[in-house]
């Protein structure tokens, strides 16, 4: 039941999002995404890299509303909306 409902919402919102890459802030909960770039200053880029978020990394979105939470190697990382807007990702579910 719960899975179906979530899947439904998932599909509806996906249609509104352009294909290809998009900011992490537009990702869905439970979606698996791959980082493709970070549009931000050195400080943020470095901070994300220190935590393991470099382009090419795959993460699972744990929470998509408010501050975004992603799971990387069993570890949850919080990105405020500002940071989440700057991180560009692509869905790694679509190409499988």
């Amino acid at each position, binding site marked *: 039941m719960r899975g179906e409902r979530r899947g439904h919402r998932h599909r509806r919102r996906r249609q509104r999002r352009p294909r290809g890459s998009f900011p992490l802030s537009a990702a869905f909960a439970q979606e698996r995404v791959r980082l493709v770039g970070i549009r931000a200053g050195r400080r*943020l880029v*470095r901070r994300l890299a*220190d*935590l393991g978020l470099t382009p090419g990394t795959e993460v699972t979105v744990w929470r998509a509303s*408010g*501050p975004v939470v992603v799971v990387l190697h*069993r570890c949850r*990382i919080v*990105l405020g*909306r500002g940071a989440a807007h700057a991180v560009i990702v692509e869905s790694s579910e679509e190409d499988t």
Partner: protein
Amino acid sequence: MSDLTAALAGNPNTGKSSLFNALTGGAQHVGNWPGKTVQLRRGVFRSEGIEVEVVDLPGTYSLAALSADERMAAGFLLDEAPDTVITVVDSANLERNLYLVVQIAEMGLRQVVALNMADVAERRGLVFDLTRLEEALGVGVVLTVARRKKGVDDLRRLVVSASGEPVPVAIDYGAGLEAAVRAIAESIEASPVVSAAVPARWAAVELLAGHESLVERLGSLEGGEAVLRIVEERRGVLEETLGEDIDLAVADRRYRWIHELVGSVVVETEKRPRDWSERIDRVVLHRFFGLPIFFFTMWVVFKLTTEVAAAYLNWVDVVVSGPLSRWTIALLGLVGLDGTWVEGLLVDGVLAGVGGVAVFIPVLVLLYFALGLLEDSGYMARAAFVMHRAMAAIGLPGNAFLPMLVGFGCTVPAVYATRTLHSSRDRILTGLLVPFMSCGARLPIYVLMASIFFPRSLGTVVFSMYLLGIAVAVVLGAILSRTVLRQPERVPLVMELPALRWPDRRTIHRFVRQRTLVFVKVAGTLILAASVVVWLLLAIPLGGDGGFGEVDIEDSAFAAGSRVIAPAFDPLGFGAWEQAGSLASGFVAKEIVVSTLSETYGLTTAAEAAEDQSVLEDLGEIGMGFLEATGDALRAIPSVTGIDLGDGGERPADLVLAVREGLEQSSNGHGPLAALAFMVFVLLYTPCVAAVGAIRSELGSRWMWTSILGQTVVAWVGAFAVFQGGRLLGFG
């Protein structure tokens, strides 16, 4: 002097503090790193007859991190060149944690890696090939569970036993980067000064990636300029050919290298069990429930430090002013000194000071207990998450909310609560703002003044003081975080959410004990000294016909001093020496402002009836009092009520009259305005000497003086604005 030095490095939330405590036992002290303002914990352990000094570095994810506290780690490793680096690693999260290990290994420092929280990894079914890990990184590896002290002996032995020159790990950064790295490394080796200061290959990689503090460091070295010129040339070429940022490329290569390594040393044997931490997070970070849960938690902490602590506070007060004072007088009687100035000094000066220190102990024990639970369980990180947006307005992280809230109870524990903030800049800013949260001791002064001059709007006037305090903190916070305490660049929130875990009894016990002792030592001496100084001022006769210790208050040095400072308060409407004197005493403790006012107006409070009790009865009273206090404390736990305004009615009529006439006179008939200005001054100036002591012990003397001077100026300006502004606008 120890035989060896070891630096303890590691990511935040890896149990680094627990390991430090397990390694060094209780023996540790906090000392400044020479020339730096950041404090480092140091401790000592012995193994096989060799003494090792351990220095606890700030938790960091990388040696190239940009925050001031994190930068220290790299600076320390380069400047102090410790014999060994002990790197603490969360063994359930090797991929990310090895990032730091690899950087230290690239520096070519001798390194011992503690795979900590090995029990968690075991429960998740992770098995490690330690030998392979040791070989790949050129380090010693031990499995540890710091909280249970497991593996700590092995770790100690490994630190003292290893010998021979370590071989730096060399990661292959790929054709493009490697050529540049080699060229820069050669230029470093060509300069004897530079190559003596930094490991060549590691520095080459870091410089190429734009490691700022390393660039600064080389700029000040002889021959460094030449190296930096080559770095700039290479960076220019690489940025065009590489197609991505160089620092990202370097991080990416390192992570790939680590990924391969982890793949070959870690075996996942079974399905990992359901993550209960994640389940709880679904509730505490919930979109709608998250905030209410947070506020409820904060409210409980506030109640603990106010009402629950109050029961014990009264007990301490009664014990000090009752039995302890009586015993002291009785002992003095044995040597024939009772009734002399010695009795006054010991009872009203020293014992009152001891009492002033002791009343804070129950508050702090309860505060540290609550903080320990929140911190050790990992909830504090959630608090930062939940309150992020609201606190960002005054340039502070979300978890700065807790010290602010505690400040409404008492400034002293609030200042100590800033310890939960991770950067020293955040701690300083919060520590400076916390005193503007109106503490419980200021309330009776507002109530007295408001009940005399604004009896019909008592609640509104008192509540507006609280609001004014918050408003001043918000404005000052906004100003300070844009000027003196500016963040070098506004960094959007990015942080790790540590797994929630069951708080460890021993960790919390140690935390409560250590922190409370620090208070007694640092703030306690200041409170005691202030109490004795005030007694002396009151005892020294200047004019009149009383001798030392028997002088009327208006002939004392205290009154003389008050008369000297009184003119400064004239433009604020309360320039009489009685009012100035009560404010001066308020610097020691806000609790005594009202009693000083009543004393200076010559209204003697009824002397305590000298009861004749035996020591046994006294002891019985102390014991019963403690049980009663515990009962009261337990009853206070479930009570969730609003701030108690107290009863405005029960005031001695002569005090009301004296205060009213005094203020009407000193303000030339603008009594209500002067009263309001007086309340504003009380709200905004230094809360008490205990708070000053707390600020000194947490932020250092420099910030203590900044706080004292800053608050006095803010208070004077605020009161001036209220009094003169009110007169201009024709109020009162």
